[in-house]
């Protein structure tokens, strides 16, 4: 195939759909299948760039969840695996414990919960490494352009801040002040902020001299109206997604609000397109491959949801009593769909080796 990389929006839609599926289940087998599918697609399409970080983060979250369960876990009775020395708590804190018996049931329940969180993190990580968030920002509609720039600048600003902090902390040492520990960092806060302020003024001057914020023939009121409309639409979409993902929200907060929000946002995009002075360099195109990827993600999510309808309870594996996790057939289908983009999408172009981290082993003290 000769076309370039997939539109970042498509990858994000695919990943978010799988994340939606993951929020629907605590069945460890289903979760493992979803995690496996996303990891496979990432491995097949991109050598894990940011993904490794998210994998570690997922494992870390799972570990924390287990540790908390062991130390502060539930007081429900179960098969005790081991007994930690416990600290008696006053009676008004009933339901809490520190130490005491650790039951197999509680551990399993914590593992499933942790796996769900890990799966969500992996989905975000997959989207992150398959499509850089920066490229997604490039694709934001014109009505949200200023917001996009603010986020882009903030994203390059954070690493610069870290760099400045390291530099200035070293300079502290040159003045004879030991740079280690919290005190060492506290002393640099003000100079780092001053440095950051200086740099951001330079950046603002550079952006201004390069034509940022040129007024076209659009009136300010109209531009504000477009931005306002866009934000309202997106807010509606956000609230609607929340309604869809939780149980117990009033039905109007679900699909109807989603449709209304999308409608308003689309209208804002169309409205803002006219009279826009900016043009876009090599915009990412949206073709059949993008539609297919999104469709695969949605199908995967749908498969998991359908499994919940067909075999009620199969998505939530019981731990009181411990039961073997079920494997409903629509989930297998869903996993298949989630995997498809590994072959359906164009291979990502090889990029040059990543940045050399400017990290030296600092003198220990």
């Amino acid at each position, binding site marked *: 195939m000769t076309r370039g990389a997939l539109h970042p929006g498509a990858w994000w839609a695919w990943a978010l759909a799988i994340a939606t599926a993951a929020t629907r289940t605590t069945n460890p087998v289903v979760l493992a299948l979803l995690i496996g599918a996303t990891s496979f697609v990432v491995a097949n399409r991109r050598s894990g760039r940011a993904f490794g970080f998210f994998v570690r983060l997922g494992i870390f979250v799972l570990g924390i969840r287990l540790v908390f369960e062991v130390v502060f876990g539930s007081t429900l009775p179960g098969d005790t695996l081991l007994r930690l020395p416990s600290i008696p708590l006053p009676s008004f804190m009933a339901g809490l414990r520190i130490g005491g018996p650790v039951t197999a049931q509680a551990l399993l329940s914590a593992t499933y919960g942790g796996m769900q969180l890990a799966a969500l993190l992996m989905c975000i990580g997959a989207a992150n490494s398959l499509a850089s968030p920066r490229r997604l920002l490039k694709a934001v509609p014109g009505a949200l352009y200023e917001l996009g720039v603010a986020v882009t600048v903030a994203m390059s600003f954070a690493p610069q801040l870290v760099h400045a902090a390291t530099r200035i902390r070293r300079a502290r040492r040159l*003045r004879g002040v030991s740079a280690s520990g919290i005190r060492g960092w506290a002393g640099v806060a003000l100079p780092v902020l001053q440095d950051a302020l200086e740099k951001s003024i330079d950046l603002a001057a550079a952006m201004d001299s390069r034509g940022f914020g040129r007024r076209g023939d659009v009136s300010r009121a109209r531009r504000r109206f477009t931005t306002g409309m866009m934000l309202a639409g997106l807010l509606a979409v956000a609230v609607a997604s929340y309604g869809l993902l939780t149980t117990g929200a009033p039905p109007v907060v679900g699909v109807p609000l989603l449709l209304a929000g999308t409608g308003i946002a689309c209208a804002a995009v169309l409205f803002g397109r006219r009279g826009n002075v900016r043009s876009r360099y090599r915009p990412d195109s949206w073709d059949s491959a993008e539609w297919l990827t999104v469709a695969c993600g949605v199908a995967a999510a749908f498969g998991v949801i359908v499994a919940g309808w067909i075999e009620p309870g199969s998505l939530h594996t019981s731990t009181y009593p411990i039961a073997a996790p079920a494997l409903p057939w629509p989930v297998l289908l869903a996993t298949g769909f989630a995997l498809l983009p590994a072959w359906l999408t164009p291979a990502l172009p090889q990029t040059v080796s990543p940045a050399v981290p400017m990290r030296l082993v600092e003198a220990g003290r």
Partner: protein
Amino acid sequence: MIEFDHVSFRYAEAAEPTLRDVDLAIPDGELVLVIGATGAGKSTLLRAVNGLVPHFTGGTLTGRVSVDARDTRTNPPRELADVVGYVGQNPLAGFVTDTVEEELAYAMESLGVDPAVMRRRTEDILDSFGLTPFRDRSLVELSAGQQQRVAIGSVLTAGPRVLVLDEPTSALDPPAAEDVLATLTRLVHDLGITVVMAEHRLERVVQYADRILEVQPGGVVVDGTPSSTMARAVVAPPVVELGRLANWQPLPLSIRDARRVAEPLRKQLAALRIPSLFSSQARDTVVVAHRLVARYGNVLALRGIDFSVAQGEIVALMGRNGAGKSTLLAHLVGLFAPAAGRVEVAGHEPHRRSASEVIRDVGLVPQEPSDLFCADTIDDELPAGARQLLDRLSPGIDGTMHPRDLSEGQRLALALSVILATEPKVLLLDEPTRGLDYPAKARLVAVLRERAATGTAIVIATHDVELAADVATRTAVLADGEIVADGPTSEVVTASPAFAPQVSKILHPLPWLTVSQVRASLEAAAR
């Protein structure tokens, strides 16, 4: 093309105007050089061209500035972006996006250039600036020279008629500076773009200028031809200084012109002895690096180098950007622990000592001197007794100012005063001549020589060959983490044309390196 009609400018809280009654017209296609002492107002003049002064900085501007018949009063910088391209002092601080290609396209996107045209222009600039191999690279990974080329390219894609550059070569090593200047002169000749640039390193640029604007103290701007301005300007490159000394008429501005008239001087000098400015007695070694290895991740920054400095020695550390000069200095002051090998300064391994112990023996002035500052006023920043030194290096600084309100050159003077206050046995300087004019450089050289005479060992990492020739007893050249040359300055700097100082190029094959050496020889002969 650019017109200043009785322009005066005063910053909001300043008592005196920075620019006073500037009246000039720059025609299309000229290369204009703006010179002046450190902090004289060169940047202010440049920024007035595209309206950053006063739209961005505040302050009061009277008179009228117009570019391509557009008044900057009614056109803020963004509306002038298609006529004037402005590149600031620090290219990295002005980058908006993160890869080369997107950065080149940014200005065009803001201007609403047609996507097809955008694509063509980006490819053109990538080719003509030699950036094609780096098109997908992240901007922070590039070398300083490449970053500067991207910064210039990214304003050129918008197709401006005027290019304004604030010190485009100050931070670059000699070959990278040549590269950038070659690109600029080609733009002037091929496209007829008007270039206005400020530069302290006159030796690099003066021969390309069609006209020189000198910003004098008090904000008066004097407009003149290069040779007439150079005949009397306070800031002058070595070639001009030598011409004044030898009384050459007309005053040559380039090496080529100077060599053609230098024949009598060469004959005269051939009969004379070169003065030895440095005492060559053996002293104790205070700095030793033995098979020092430094590592950034998988990259070796220093590959097992051996390096030593004796008391009273001044060593210039040269080499292209990223060769490992700053890394070596950081190891000598104990900021980093060696990955392998040994470092000893004044008999101790610096990274094993506490910060307060280290600074009694060794002081480093970092590349960004302002990193050292932590107080709100200059008076609070200076330790007791250091004010005197500051006044010598940079006279007339108001002690109640905030350190960050100083100009680049003044910041260096302050940082050096702060570091020298502890009387270290070893003084390390990282790129000390950025933003320094010639008189300020001369004051710096005098202070360094004085310290060396009292036994301080000094190491200067620098791109400035003239400084090295002037002050260093020894020069070491680093390339790719290895020392490729280490010996007396006169031998090392004349060995390769890129690093040879101007005087040495003019007088080749004679061994004189600086104007002061020539002057000393001539005076000794006259006596």
